[in-house]
């Protein structure tokens, strides 16, 4: 048992934290999210150059690490509210490829992800599927050796910046069957792909993505046809661990900002941080943060365990982080008072990001139910 980071991991943290501190201050971010592009491709190139986009991959795939490295990077992203698509491109698409891709796919696409030349978005959600990863109306019909995709993917984060999509689609079975789900790589420039782009409330960009008779070859399938769900679930658990880390970074900063503000802000002739009711609230925020860090470690370190253990850990973490993030976010605004309501202060933006993290890859209710369903497999002996 060991909670220490290796020297190499500490170097990753130092590198990314310096980059975000020096080049991603709040005013810069404000400019970036208001810009036409909505992100910083030049920073992405810099991350690639520093090797950060290779961090979660094995040496065989051209990288040097795994889930712990992704956790470290996303925690730092969370501290700076960086909007760049590390989770969609590196964790999700990269994850699908590293676990399910054949050697040609890995070489081409993981190489592209690591170099930053290819940017992926993960088109898994649908307007009517809610958080059920198997509930798919998007279809991919076999046509000779090829597939023809039709459907509508919802709120695809980072899609406006993407060169490629990883798309989940039904190749057989009924709309919610666990079997019959397959995973495809689709070039954004392919004929029949269209997007409607927009900003999200937490400063990112996303698209509704439409596939109309998009033809792809057999080389576009990742993993086994009709048996893509286990891989999607695995990658979504990896994304959850990374998202939890991002939430921890955001919670830490929101909490620190709030404590600092309570030192400065005076009412009734005294800093409001002297009021016990606010002190205890801020202690509760601190405890929520610490418990969230613990759960993030657990989810990350159990990604390689057996399926049930992995899923339970990811769901448990997502529940705890959803609840902790909500509490820390809401109380940060409350303790900042009217100033917390203003767009001018950073704290509101941390609150908004924490709020949106809850619904990504399933919210508290979804994961509490998933955890409970998974627990039902262990039936205890009834007491007498």
């Amino acid at each position, binding site marked *: *048992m*060991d*909670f*220490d*980071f290796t020297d190499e*991991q500490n170097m990753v943290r130092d590198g990314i934290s310096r980059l975000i501190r020096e080049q991603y201050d709040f005013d810069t971010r404000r400019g970036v999210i208001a810009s036409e592009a909505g992100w910083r491709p030049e920073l992405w190139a810099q991350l690639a150059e520093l090797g950060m986009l290779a961090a979660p991959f094995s040496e065989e795939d051209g990288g040097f690490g795994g889930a*712990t490295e992704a956790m470290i990077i996303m925690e730092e992203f969370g501290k700076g509210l960086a909007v760049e698509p590390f989770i969609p491109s590196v964790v999700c698409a990269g994850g699908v490829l590293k676990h399910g891709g054949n050697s040609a796919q890995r070489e081409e696409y993981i190489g592209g992800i690591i170099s930053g030349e290819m940017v992926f978005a993960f088109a898994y959600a649908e307007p009517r599927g809610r958080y059920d990863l198997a509930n798919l109306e998007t279809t991919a019909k076999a046509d000779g050796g090829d597939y023809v995709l039709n459907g509508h993917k919802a709120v695809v984060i980072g899609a406006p910046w993407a060169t490629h999509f990883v798309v989940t689609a039904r190749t057989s079975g009924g709309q919610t069957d666990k079997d019959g789900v397959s995973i495809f790589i689709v070039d954004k420039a392919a004929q029949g792909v269209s997007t409607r782009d927009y900003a999200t409330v937490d400063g990112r960009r996303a698209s509704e993505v439409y596939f109309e008779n998009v033809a792809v070859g057999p080389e576009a399938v990742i993993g086994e046809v009709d048996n893509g769900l286990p891989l999607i679930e695995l990658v979504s658990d990896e994304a959850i661990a990374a998202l939890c880390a991002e939430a921890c970074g955001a919670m830490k900063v929101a909490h620190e900002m709030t*404590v600092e503000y*309570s*030192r400065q802000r005076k009412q009734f002739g005294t800093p409001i*941080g*002297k009021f*016990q009711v606010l*002190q*205890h609230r*801020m*202690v*509760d925020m*601190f*405890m929520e943060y*610490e*418990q*969230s*860090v*613990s*759960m993030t*470690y*657990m989810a*990350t*370190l*159990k990604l390689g365990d057996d399926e049930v253990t992995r899923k339970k*850990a990811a769901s*448990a973490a997502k*529940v*705890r982080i959803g609840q902790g993030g909500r509490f820390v976010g809401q109380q940060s605004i409350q303790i900042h008072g009217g100033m917390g309501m203003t767009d001018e202060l950073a704290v509101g933006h941390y609150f908004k990001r924490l709020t949106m993290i809850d619904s990504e890859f399933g919210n508290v209710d979804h994961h*509490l*139910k998933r*955890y*409970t369903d998974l*627990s*039902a497999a262990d*039936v*205890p*002996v*009834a*007491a*007498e």
Partner: protein
Amino acid sequence: MNLEFTEEEKAFRAEVREFIENNYPQDIGTRGVDDEMGREDLLAWHKILGKKGWSVPAWPKEYGGTDWTPTQRYIWGEENARKNTVMPLPFGVSMVGPVIYTFGNEEQKAQHLPGIRSGDVWWCQGYSEPGAGSDLASLKTTAVRDGDDYILNGQKTWTTLAQHADWGFFLCRTDPDAPKPQMGISFILVDMKTPGIEVRPIKLIDGGHEVNEVWLTDVRVPATNLIGEENKGWTYAKFLLAHERSGIAGVARSKRGVEQLKEIAAAEMLDGKPLLEDMGFAQKISQLEIDLSALEITELRTLAGEQAGKGPGPESSLLKVKGTEIQQRLTELTLEAVGYYGAPDFRSFPDDGSNDFPIGPDYAHHAAPTYFNMRKTSIYGGSNEIQRNIITKMILGL
């Protein structure tokens, strides 16, 4: 980073598991409602561990400790929780013992440490007073020097299991004129058989007799029973509070408690199905388990810090707050689970030797008293509000 125990740690777990399996006395009850167990039952395991040399694992080797790492001590706690053993009480082992070997003189060590290790001497803690709870430093019990003795007068309260105690450690005011209340307090060991001590039971809301008032009237104690220096008692008291907090979160016991709760929920029926299959109730258990997982990892992180040489810090306040909240929630859900049969008071059951018509399931008998009793956990050992004050000061710096 990894969550795995090392091979040595796994071997250690197997060793202690086997020892517990082979040596834990089968004829003693499990500790639920304290006053149902007699002194000998409460000491039985302590005495066995004393002979084995495992009764005071956290002590330095020279005083009889085991040299176990913090992780090994954690494993030891887990394995004991698995078997629901009645562990040595903390008053000697975790509280006064470390104060004696750290601040006591050689005579005091020689006189007291062996009895604490063996379990032959029962200790109680004379800290709280009717007017000094969270504000402990305002205590009023006096110790006045008279020749070679101190004369103690005052009243202590909430003294846990003092009805069995052979010795007590008391905080007394020796300098009423000290510039700060903390500066006039001394730490004194008292033989509970000394004339002038009266132990009066306090009945608690669970119906049990767990705590007492201790009245001190002209109690004459040899001055050699003073620990360290006169008027420095507050320092020793604070040391004691910060010492050996591993296990404070009660994670292992709560895990065992969740298992029991699930067994009960599997036996109770709702709409023709086990209560455990009811999504509403099952999700309450899930939430508890999730909160407990978070606490467990937080405790392991603290432990890893301790292993790396960082002393237990204010994180132990977090462990105390979250640990007790979970313990309370667990007993709350257990009471919910047993339904109607939470109501009958087991202390009033007819003693007619008949088992033909049992009053409700056995597992329901202690549900309500235990729930009532566990409300104490967020009050004792520095209330959870005081713990939040500590975090405010030590971590938030406000």
